[in-house]
């Protein structure tokens, strides 16, 4: 203990890093505080009112509509990741819901058994072998990683809603989508407030795990048959398992949803 303390004293500014994957912790914490304020002051109240006031079927319709718009890009990403079956499913979802589902408001495809996947370009890069890099908290957009932030422009480009005219309709849509997404994780975020001792850390550690899990669709790494011993190592080295937990109560994407 004393040796470590001495070593700490020698190397100036030695704060025990809480997570080796978060070298930008100071910046991230500051951004988190900002996001949290925006959330507490504006977004969460809006989402709470939205959830309480709007009839269930309207909320579902809104969620389905925006969900449908993202299915086309999910399909493309699935194909880029080599998952042909999932890619075809997502495409079918998009086709079906856009037509029979009246512009996506009704989610007929789910009832027909076509499961939804949420794939974005960051996950595609992950599958292609790009490591996630350090944790990065984005202003307003919430938790991310260096790789996923780099992939963001691709997601924005592929977002059909971004091309809607007139502009004021587009902006309203973006706002509604953000509120809807926030409302959908409202209960979970309230729960998380109870469970987390330090919300910043809880969100970060959970997010990284969950992100990793999403890249590899439920596995903790590219090797599906990894021997069990590995995942139990409590040693620190490069936490290979970084999956995100808890649907981020985080501030919603103003453009793309980043789960």
């Amino acid at each position, binding site marked *: 203990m004393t040796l470590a303390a001495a070593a700490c004293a020698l190397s100036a500014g030695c704060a*025990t890093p*809480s*997570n080796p994957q978060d070298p930008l912790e100071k910046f991230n914490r500051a951004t988190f505080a900002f996001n949290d304020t925006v959330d507490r002051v504006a977004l969460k109240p809006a989402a709470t009112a939205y*959830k*309480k006031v709007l009839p269930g079927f309207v909320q*579902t319709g809104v*969620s389905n509509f925006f969900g449908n718009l993202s299915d086309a890009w999910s399909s493309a990403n699935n194909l880029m990741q080599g998952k042909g079956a999932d890619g075809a499913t997502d495409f079918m979802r998009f086709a079906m819901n856009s037509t029979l589902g009246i512009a996506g408001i009704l989610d007929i495809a789910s009832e027909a058994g076509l*499961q*939804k*996947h*949420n794939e974005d370009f960051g996950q595609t890069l992950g599958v292609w072998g790009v490591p996630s890099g350090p944790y990065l908290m984005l202003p307003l957009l919430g938790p991310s990683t260096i790789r996923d932030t780099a992939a963001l422009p691709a997601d924005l480009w592929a977002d059909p809603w971004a091309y809607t005219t007139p502009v004021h309709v587009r902006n309203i849509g973006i706002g509604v989508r953000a509120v809807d997404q926030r409302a*959908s994780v409202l*209960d979970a975020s*309230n*729960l998380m407030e*109870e*469970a*987390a*001792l*330090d919300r910043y*850390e*809880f969100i*970060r*550690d*959970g*997010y990284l*795990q*969950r*992100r*990793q*899990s*999403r890249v590899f669709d*439920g596995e903790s790494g590219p090797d599906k048959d990894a021997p*069990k011993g590995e995942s*139990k190592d*409590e040693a620190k080295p490069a*936490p290979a*398992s970084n*999956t*995100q*937990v*808890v*649907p981020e109560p985080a501030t919603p994407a103003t453009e793309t949803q980043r789960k």
Partner: protein
Amino acid sequence: MKPIAQLIATAATLVFATSVIAAPAPASNEAPDVLVKRISADVIDTVKADKDIQAGNRNRIMDLVNSKILPYVDAEKMTAQAAGRFWRQATPEQQKRLTEEFRTLLVYTYSGALSQIKNETVEFKPMRSEPADTDVEVRSQVNVTRGEPITLNYRLAKANGGWKIYDINVLGAWLVETYKGTFAAEINKSGVDGLIAKLADRNRQLASKPLKAPK
């Protein structure tokens, strides 16, 4: 009393005593996935059928968790893993207190989650393990009415009393892994006692807070 009679009486008492003690042991030979499925179905059915729970009665939910789930959870192992290398540095007294507080926190949190169950169903995936394994992962997902299914996986280890859960994965994140960072940071800041105090504080807060009634 004649010696023989005394001997018989003692033997009888002994047999009776051991059988009474041995009786309440939980099914120790259940396979881990069978165990989890059973508990899961049991808990969900109870939650759905109980109006009190649906209304948000915190005490009833906690009773449910304490009686149906806790006996199958190895809280000590969970706490030890979350504490990581600090576990060995803690005294047995601290370990015990830490385990208690952590377990209480998890019961509160889990109760909150249970109170939100409405129409969800749980689907179990085939378990990938060898019969001789003593450490397995049971995978399932919760099918929700809106959105993609929620992954819910469990890690179980085989101990003397049968299989016990020592980690839970929700939406891709393992509970122990997620708390590790927080535990380590708090212990670095104010020691194991500081962590225990913080957990106790949080538990006190949660105890006085009524469960939110669902919309």
